[in-house]
């Protein structure tokens, strides 16, 4: 077993003539996972911001005032 299947980097990129199929699979695969991971991080931060807003007494007072709830 040789450690490397390819003779050169260009050889590796060419994927024996199947470059667009192979890289089209790998890049979409890796990009999909990366996008999902980043989106989940944003969702968590948004949820945390929502919780912080709910706990903020100023927000609650403003909401109650808008609804006409006596203090």
């Amino acid at each position: 077993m040789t450690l490397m299947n390819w003779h050169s980097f260009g050889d590796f990129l060419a994927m024996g003539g199947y470059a667009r199929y192979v890289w089209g699979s790998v890049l979409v695969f890796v990009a999909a996972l990366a996008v999902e991971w980043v989106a989940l991080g944003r969702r968590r931060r948004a949820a945390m911001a929502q919780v912080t807003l709910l706990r903020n007494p100023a927000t609650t007072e403003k909401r109650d005032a808008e609804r006409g709830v006596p203090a």
Partner: protein
Amino acid sequence: MTFGMTTQRLDRGVRLTPTSLSPATANAATIAGIGWSRFASPQAFDALAGRLIPGLFVAAVALLTAGLAIGFVVAPTDHQQGDAYRIIFVHVPAAWMAMVIYLAMAFWAAVGLVLNTRLSFMAMQALAPTGALFAFLCLWTGALWGKPTWGTWWVWDARLTSVLILLFLYIGFIALQAAIDDPRRADRAGALLALVGVVNVPVIYFSVQWWNTLHQGATISLRSAPTMAGTMLLALLLSTLGLWAYVAAAVLRRLRCIVLERERHAQWVGRLPELRS
């Protein structure tokens, strides 16, 4: 108010377990039930998931990098399919995960319907988008593999069609849950859909045996070991393990978000250390 109501429902679900069993097993079930119900509480889950996610993510990156490096750099070229076969290292793990995630989703749907635990339904909901993503990736990489080897992007054979149905089941589940405003009704409707759709998973798995498909048979089989080089097998194994770790990390991360969004009014959420910083 929502919090109190759901806690009551959770208690009712937990209490069902010991009474429905014989006295001999009831004791063991009570003990097991204590450990089990501890992590059925969204608060305990959130803390546990927070500790697990970083390690799972590091494992996912390390295993996927190693698996893909071996698969795309070290593994030899296939003598029949040339280098197009290398798509296997992303296609097969994605296909496996798409099926495994659906089984997990149906499992939590069943647990939720029987025990009425809110975390089970949230787990079910957290699995769906990642499952849909992998069903899509399976079809996408499959099309890119089919074109050079079969001469077509798509064919309506049993394997491909049943995977497409899997993707539609995921999308249908997500749409159904999003369409119902009351979370408890959305949970029950979604759980029912998830359970009915689970019959599709064995159909996908055995489709290549039951019908004459254009799709090739199972790749991993003891008899075909000589046709697959050791490095190919190692690459496939590592990328599959990496994807397992990724899925666990991503689903736990989404589940944490869902817990936080649904329980935002609960007292324990207000005590989260992240809020103080």
